[in-house]
Every structure is written in structure tokens, then in C-alpha cells.
């Protein structure tokens, strides 16, 4: 799969829900729902979602 165009500067230490590793990588700003970002665990290789609401606002 080619690299996604958007690699937002987001938390990279999200814990994998499958194996609890923090060695994870953000792949995309939208997962299968608007509430989650798509991550991948670099240890167990599995994909997972992370709920992204952190109350950050765009620059104004």
C-alpha cells in the first residue's frame, strides 16, 4: 500500500489495544469512523483505531 498523503503531526505513542505496545504509527486522520484515526502497531503489525478527540482547535 502506498504511503498516505496526509501524515499529520499527531501523537505517535498510542498504545496498541491488541498487544499494549506503544511502538505504533499513525497512518491516517480518519479510520472507519470520523471519531477515530487509523494506527498500526509496529510490534504486532495490526491495525487499530484511536479516538482522536483532544479538544485541539485550528490556528486562528
Amino acid at each position, binding site marked *: *500500500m*502506498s504511503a498516505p498523503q496526509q501524515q499529520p503531526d499527531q501523537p505517535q505513542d498510542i498504545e496498541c489495544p*491488541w498487544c499494549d505496545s506503544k511502538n505504533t504509527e499513525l*497512518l*491516517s486522520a*480518519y*479510520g*472507519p*469512523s*470520523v471519531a477515530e484515526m*487509523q494506527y*498500526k502497531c509496529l510490534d*504486532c*503489525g*495490526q*491495525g*487499530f*483505531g484511536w479516538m482522536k478527540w483532544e479538544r485541539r482547535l485550528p490556528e486562528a
Partner: protein
Amino acid sequence: MSSDAQTTRDDAVEAAMLARIEAGEMFEDIDELSPRYREILRQTAEIASISEVSVLTWACTAYPTAPDIGAKVAVCATILDEVGHAYHQGILAEQFGVDVHSRAFKDDIKFIWTWPIMEVPIRNYIEFVVMQSMLDRAGLHWTKDLELHCSYAPYRRTLRKVNFEEGFHMRHGNFWTEFYWNQSEETRAMVQRSIDWIFPFGVMWFGKPDNLKTRPEQLKYKVRGWGNDFMRDKWLQSSCAFLNKLGADFPAEFDEETKKWRITMPYPMKYDAENYTWSQEQCTHDEYWQHSRKGGPMRPGAYERLRREEWGDKLW
């Protein structure tokens, strides 16, 4: 080594693999899998992720008749969900050497496989919600099988995430199908027309009857656990119960002895994708699948469209 010797050795590797699977072992590491087993998983994961991409082009045909903001949001959410699942499953498929991006956007379109109905444009938003009710129900049985039975554990987990989310489509479809059934005579007629078209696709969703197939390798290697007949029956019981509650017409009857629904339509029969009708004449399963392999009216145009951009006056 002679090719015979090679074959013998390969057979021994596969036999050992099968013995471990048979003993109920689950596998965590891709390196533990025999070549044949890997190939079966590769095919399964590729088809699963590519067919989700086809939902994108197909669901887009529901936008123009989606009547209000809420309906449009539902179409967007469906696309987000399905493409998100293609991507999510692609992460696993990638480990088996599948390049989902290449398959969807670069390779020969003949490699894109999907269910025949995903290549027939959706006529209107009401049909869209009936599709969700009937066909997401079918898709759910299909993927639930992998989640529950796959002997490769990472695949189970991948599908757990997918199934956890897919249930919503069916519930959304059920809710609005019932809503439109009760809304007006016109909407009820449209729901009925949609059921007439979609129901047989649900019956055909699960492939050939088990007795017409040699035991498929997916079952041999316990990638799947349920046979086609079992899944079809689960789908049928659940769909018929829902449609019966509505009071809709559908080609099945309740058998008081077995306490189960059984189909009354010619099985199988051919569909006419241009006119959204079924022949109502029985054919053979080989004839049906030969017919469906031709693909629907959206092939290849819809996939070509994904590789092309249209701008300016073509948009509005």
C-alpha cells in the same frame, strides 16, 4: 531436487500444517504458516479489501437521491466505513504481499473482484437502506465466520474490529426500511420493489451449495468454519423474520414442521441488471456464476473513473 521430490516435500509440509490446524492450533506468526496456507490467506484478504473499495463507487450512486442532510451523512459514513475497512484489512493483506493500492488504482481492472450487485447502480436512497438491511446482513455473516474461526489469529482480530462496526449498517438499514415501509404508499411500493430486486442477491451471496463443491481449501485450512449452506440459512432466517415483521412480500415460506423459513423462488435464477429483474426461471449454478462473472453495468466504467479525474463544468 527433482520436481517429484519437491512435490513430495511440499506435500509433507502441507500435511504437517493441516495436522496442526486439525488439532485446533492457532497461529500468531506468519512464519509458522505453510506456503499453501499463506496463499489462501492472501487470496481471502485481497478479495476482502478490494471488494470494500467497490462499495465506494457503488455507494456514491446513492448521493443524488439522498433526500436530506441526514441521509447524505449516512452515505458518507458508509463510504468512510467501507474504505476504512479496506484500508484496515489492507494492513494485514500487505503482510502477505498484497498491494491494495495497486489493485484498486493501477492493475488491470479484471483483477478487481466484487459481488455482482455492487456493480449495479443504486436506483434511489430507499433502495440504499434496503440494501443495508439485506446485504450488510449477508456481509456480516461472511466476515463473522472469519472472526470466529480463522486459525490465523491476527486475521481474527482484524475482523473483530470490522464486525464490531459493520453491525451498524444493518441496524441503520432496518430502521429506515421500516420507516419507509410505514411512511406512505409510494415509499412502501419502493421498499417492496427494492426487496424484489435485492432478496435473491442475498440468497446467492454465499456461493454454490456445499454439495456442488469439493471441500474448499478455506475450510480445510480453517480460514473459515462455516459452510455456504449454513451461512445462507442463517441469513435467510434472520432476513425473513425481519421482512415478515414488516409485512413485506418475499419469496420464502415458513415451514411449520422445521420451524424455519425456506425459499420459494427458483434457485438459482438469472438476473437482468439493466432492468433490475430476475428471470423467475431456474438455471444451473454453473450458469448463474458464469452469468455473474461478466460483471455489472458499472464495470469497467466505475473503476476507470477512480483512475481519472473530472473537473470544471462536468461537476456542476
